[in-house]
């Protein structure tokens, strides 16, 4: 199901953990929909000097988090903002079609961490804790997305009305 690179990053994930006093924190996803990713960055001279992650999710979500941190480490903030979901999926040697959504989560978490850093630097944000709580809450209310084309779909919908792909809501036997 998964490529060798995905399995390697899943089994031996790089940069797992939190950074105490991180300069920026990005939190995306929520456990309701199945995946949640936190990214912590330390910024020095406008570069990502250190990056760590914590992820609740499937094998693909963990591999995506690990690969993302590898891609972002040492990059300037501008360069890091340009890392796309596609870059992460390609670096992993591809993901199964129904797992592509997990790669969206990866780049989103990184970009969110960088924005958080920039907001704090410009004084827009003072109390980090409060913002994080609100962020998670706002995500809770979100709907779920088609795993194939990532468009928002009805939760019980048997197929995606955008791409037409049938959605399997759980493992059948």
């Amino acid at each position, binding site marked *: 199901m998964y490529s060798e690179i995905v399995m390697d990053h899943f089994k031996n994930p790089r940069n*797992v953990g939190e950074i105490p006093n991180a300069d920026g924190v990005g939190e995306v996803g929520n456990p309701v*929909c*199945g995946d949640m990713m936190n990214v912590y960055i330390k910024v020095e001279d406008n570069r990502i000097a250190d990056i760590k992650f914590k992820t609740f999710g*499937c094998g693909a979500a963990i591999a995506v988090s690990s690969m993302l941190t590898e891609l972002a480490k040492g990059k300037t903030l501008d360069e890091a903002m340009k890392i796309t979901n596609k870059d992460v999926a390609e670096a992993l040697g591809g993901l199964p079609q129904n797992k592509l959504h997990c790669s*969206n989560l990866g780049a989103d978490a990184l970009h969110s961490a960088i924005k958080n850093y920039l907001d704090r630097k410009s004084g827009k944000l003072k109390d980090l804790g409060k913002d994080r709580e609100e962020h998670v809450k706002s995500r809770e209310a979100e709907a779920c997305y088609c795993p194939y084309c990532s468009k928002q779909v009805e939760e*019980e919908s048997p197929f995606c009305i955008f791409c037409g792909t049938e959605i399997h809501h*759980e*493992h059948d*036997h």
Partner: protein
Amino acid sequence: MGVIYLDHLSGTPLHPRVQEAMINHINTVYGNPVSDHQVGQQAAQALEKARSQVAALINADPSEIVFESGGTESVNHAIKGVAIGMREKGRHIITTNIEHKAVLNSLRTLRLLDYTVTSLDVDSYGLVDPAAVEAAITPGTILISIMLANNEIGTLEPIADIAKIAQKHKVVCHTDAVDAVGVIPVDIKTLGVDLLSLAANQFYGPPGVGALYVRKGTRIWPLLDGGMQENKRRAGTENLIGIVGMGVAAEVAKEEMPERLPRIRALRDKLRDGLVARIPEIVINGHPTQCLPHLVSVSIKYIEGESLMLMLDEEGIAVATRSACASGSLRASHVLISTGMDFATAQGTLLFSLGRDNTEAEIDRVLEVMPPIVQTLREMSPLYKKGHTA
């Protein structure tokens, strides 16, 4: 050590006696049971022998057994067949929120055809209340379809009570017994249902073959139209190789059940109790006593089921996950959510289903390997707080 297979609900390996019978059949029989010549009649004999063997497993008359292409077709036939057969009487069907997809999606199709469905809630064990079933019956109710054993949490529903209510109100009663037949004793006379679905690959027979028990006098339309096979109830040339395998599997299941049951139940108890003792913050799903004897459904907080399943697979342990397919977009198991479990916990669910070949050493291995894997994944999870570390 080979693979430790703990996913028997997804399919059982062939019993050696089943394999032998199927190979013998392939080598000697090739006729079509509908042909009146000797070659055809040899096939017809094999078919009727298998029918008797399957009937004996559930204490039915052989004429009440219709062979199907598996549990899914059997369920589709029961539900859609009654819907068409009874359409003059009404268009209302009663079911529960925790049925298998074969039931849920058959009913989804019938909704498109203007049938109405009442889907009943279950309690935290996954049990449906027979009184709620009775209360849902209307003059237009034609069918009650409720599973005998749930395929995700193993809870056994009070089908005998529900069948009595159905009989009282002259409503046809179907039970999806796919995960129970061949595992626990199932007696059609005690249950009192009109229709019952079963599948061979739950009791060491081949995949792709199942049966529908149809009580004499039940009005049911064929799902597949065509020739007169299966007494005009299921057209199409029979999958005789599979059917012969199912027959022998049924016979062997009946023979071996008194020995299999207590042994597998003891291993299951060891696994369940071992997990509870070794891994903090887990939930054992389903009813504690009124449940299948070979299944453990466990929800592990703070982690997601697929990553745990993959890590166990790396250790040579094959289990099923009952989380959403973990793509970040799909909902958790409808069964667990129906029992009142929160979404996050439901995502971390694993389903172990044991079988006749499992050993105590294998269970010991799982209990040794799993706790550190759970801890590794928890350390990686943003939901797991350091304070929880024991």
